[in-house]
């Protein structure tokens, strides 16, 4: 990969990371079984999924770009799907509630006024506890989480590969791997907090009304990633 392509790859990776936060369902009050979504804040959850993806992508760094991207995506998705299973088990047998989506039950999902789950057609309204906003992870949020983890894993692995290409001519291999891994993690952490400002603490994934705010996130992450990529490029190649 030439250096200039690597710079554009860093920008693309940053934007993908910003988008993935909108797809991954998360809410802080989920820990009290009072909201649908994984029971953590959106920015920290995406950071966790991204780190799992970058760790998984690192093993295949010398096999080419396509394998690195695929490994990152499947690593993040594996973490997401296991976390969702664990969250549903904890809700089902620890608190005694079944997964139900609060937004869909009140008819405010992005697909219209129906109170049924978008993918399986199961009715959500009779199953939520009164006074809460849903609990657990029904199937529509589950699919949204897997898609989000794929996008985030690809973004993180792309930044990792691009920075590694920029650094391998000037540093010895172990140093290049570690510094590239850390800068990949850093770009991930910077870009996962900007969407959290728009989401204000909770989201239900791609069937939530808040998905309409994605263009704002896209523009902000684009600007911030461009500035960072230009600075990294100038530090590595120009100076």
């Amino acid at each position, binding site marked *: 990969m030439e250096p200039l392509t690597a710079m554009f790859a860093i920008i693309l990776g940053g934007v993908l990371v910003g988008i993935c936060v909108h797809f991954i369902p998360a809410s802080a009050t989920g820990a009290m079984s009072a909201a649908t979504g994984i029971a953590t804040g959106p920015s920290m959850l995406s950071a*966790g999924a991204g780190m799992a993806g970058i760790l998984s992508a690192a093993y295949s760094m010398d096999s080419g770009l396509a394998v690195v991207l695929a490994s990152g995506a499947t690593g993040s998705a594996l973490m997401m799907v296991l976390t969702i299973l664990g969250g549903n088990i*904890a809700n089902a047998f620890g608190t005694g509630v079944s997964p139900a989506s609060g937004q869909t039950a009140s008819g405010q999902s992005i697909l219209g006024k129906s109170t049924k789950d978008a993918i399986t057609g199961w009715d959500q309204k009779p199953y939520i506890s009164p*006074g809460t906003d849903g609990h657990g992870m029904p199937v529509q949020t*589950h699919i949204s989480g897997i898609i989000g983890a794929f996008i985030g894993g690809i973004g993180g692995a792309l930044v990792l590969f691009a920075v590694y290409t920029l650094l391998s001519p000037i540093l010895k291999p172990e140093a290049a791997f*570690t510094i590239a891994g850390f800068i990949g993690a850093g770009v991930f952490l910077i870009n996962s907090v900007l969407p959290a400002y728009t989401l204000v603490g909770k989201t239900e994934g791609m069937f939530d009304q808040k998905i309409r705010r994605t263009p704002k996130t896209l523009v902000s992450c684009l600007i911030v990633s461009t500035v960072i990529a230009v600075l990294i490029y100038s530090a590595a190649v120009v100076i």
Partner: protein
Amino acid sequence: MLPLLGTILTGLLAFLAGIFEDSESNAGSASNPNSQVQLAPQIGHRHRYFNKAISGEPPANALWATTAATVAVLLVAKFEAFNPVYSVIISSVIGALVSTLLLGLYGIFSHISRVASMKTFKQTLYWDSLYSALPLDLSFGFLTALSLTLLSFTAGMMLNNPFSIPLIAFMLGITIGTIGSSTGDIHYGAERLYQHHIFGSGIPISNQGDIDVKGEYGYRNSVDTPYFTLRFGAMVTAFVFGMLIFLDSLSRVFVFAGVWSSVIVELGMILIIFIVTVFLEKYTRDRYGPFVR
């Protein structure tokens, strides 16, 4: 042979790390359920819990793991001449001791400064509620840092991860914090803190803050929490984190399709786990039925 042995070892260490991490976050009330412990004095329930509000779980666990791993790596470079395996174990223990010291200091300062900001709600600072829970918290923290450091050493040396060992520990720390916060904290936040509310319902917004202040006999302390959540919440966290590390390393043992074999095996695993989750949802909907008032 070596990658398979490394896979088994990392799976075992990851399972243990999950148990200890969740118990540590419950021995001192941390992250999302801590908002309930923080809210309780505001509605009149003065309590005797250890209000350990350091930060969310991912950055905190990343700090304990990275400190232990960095000190361990620097010590291994000095002790390597004696014996490679023993030097790794002893350096990990010393590194985990340093990170436990940091955990203790941060925990004490957060409890004191949070209670000091509650003057208007008349919450008293009970010294024994801090000092009884602290040794339990420090022990679980030490075990978490130790297992995560040994896990990073195994991933770096036996499975040939190209990153340096403190960076692997940093990423594993963030991941285990995220998983512990998403799965184990539900058992603490929705069940243990609200035992006088019915089983089978989430906690409505109007009831939040109405936590248990009394225990089986007398007033409840943070020492009373881990023995309860260990039986379920810690096991779920351990299951998720252990399976993640084990399955991820296991997929690399296969070589039937060249470099793409691990990707294909992981996609198969994702599909199987997705189907299991859908079956679980159907089972709970059929068995529990709609909410009965």
